[in-house]
């Protein structure tokens, strides 16, 4: 029945990946000082992802998150057997204002799992948050001009805690 059809589209996806990421030689050297929990769990990386897309006429929204976990072969002390975690997420939206002209915004987050250290339990790297807003104009179908403003926040580390960037981009595709 035509009247009951939704004017919006939603797509949902998920993905899983797992594999070894170090050479046998490196794994053997690391195993000598920090053996993996079992022979069946060598130095592997696994990733779980999920994404969703929603669109309605001139509006499009996407969100995606990926959780990655891996064991790092430490060849020197302090050896570590617990895995490292990282979580990457973004949410973005785009709206077509006129034919060829759009505005868009995006929020990114990259977070890191915690590890035990001499200073207690802390994230193994500084989380980063990025907020970006911009727009684009297609002169012809395959020639796009983009301008965006980016605000980055980094909670710790040697880099500046806050940084702003303005970017312009010319995209030609064929």
């Amino acid at each position, binding site marked *: 029945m035509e009247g009951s059809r939704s004017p919006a589209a939603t797509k949902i996806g998920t993905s899983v990946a797992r594999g070894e990421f170090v050479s046998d030689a490196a794994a053997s050297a690391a195993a000598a000082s920090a053996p993996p929990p079992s022979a069946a769990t060598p130095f592997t990386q696994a990733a779980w992802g999920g994404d969703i897309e929603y*669109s*309605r006429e001139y509006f499009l929204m996407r969100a995606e998150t990926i959780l990655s976990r891996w064991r790092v072969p430490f060849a020197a002390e302090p050896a570590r057997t617990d895995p490292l975690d990282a979580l990457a997420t973004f949410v973005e939206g785009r709206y077509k204002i006129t*034919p060829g002209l759009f505005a868009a915004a995006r929020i990114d987050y990259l977070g890191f799992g915690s590890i035990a250290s001499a200073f207690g339990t802390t994230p193994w790297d500084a989380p980063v948050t990025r907020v970006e807003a911009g727009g684009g104009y297609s002169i012809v179908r395959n020639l796009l001009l983009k301008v965006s403003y980016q605000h980055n926040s980094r909670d710790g580390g040697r880099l500046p805690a806050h940084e702003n960037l303005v970017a312009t981009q010319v995209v030609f595709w064929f």
Partner: protein
Amino acid sequence: MPARRQSRLQAWAIPLASVLALGFAAPRVPVSRFHAPPPPITAARPGSIRGRVELRRVPLPVERRPSVSDLGTPAPRDLPDLLRSVVYLESAPRGAFEADEGGHAVMDQRNEAFVPHVVAIMTGTIVDFPNSDAFYHNVFSLSKTSRFDLGRYAAGHSKSIRFDKPGIVRVFCDIHSHMNAFILVFSHPFFAVTNAAGDYGIENVPPGTYNVIAWNEGTASDPKPAVVPDGAAAELDFTLR
């Protein structure tokens, strides 16, 4: 110039011009002809222009970009019919047709292709773009002739746009980059789309001499003259590329 002198000059100039015109433009026409009753008026019967467009090289369709959906059961896809050409008069005889409000034409979206791939219409025509696929499409054009974006819409829905300016409109789908089509908008009705064999026929053309152009996938021929006889057909073939 005084008004009296102007009127005298006009009084001389008009007969002189008439004599010169009669003397040089129609010296062999018997004088008595001008006094005879006018011949019976017979309306010129429209003719036609027919022929064939041969394509030396058929352009290849745009390759489809791989999609996640191809991993499962990929949706069927039709290839665009690139053999169709459009033949049209470069300019139309004045007063040879009556401008109307224009009708409706349909460019369907089916199996990830615009069907038909080429549509030729007159200005004022409304083109409907129904979505006959099970997934979303987003028809748009950034052509100078008509710049529009119909947004995303689902299967079973249709959106329309009216074309008021003559020219060539390139149509795309914002979701499926391999989908493309052409809409040729004319300010007169003297055009025809060829069949799969390349044959065409432009009907109801007033007798006269015209420049005719053949077009296929963005390539246009040089204008070729065609003499349309009274109530008969002129033959004109083209070779493109």
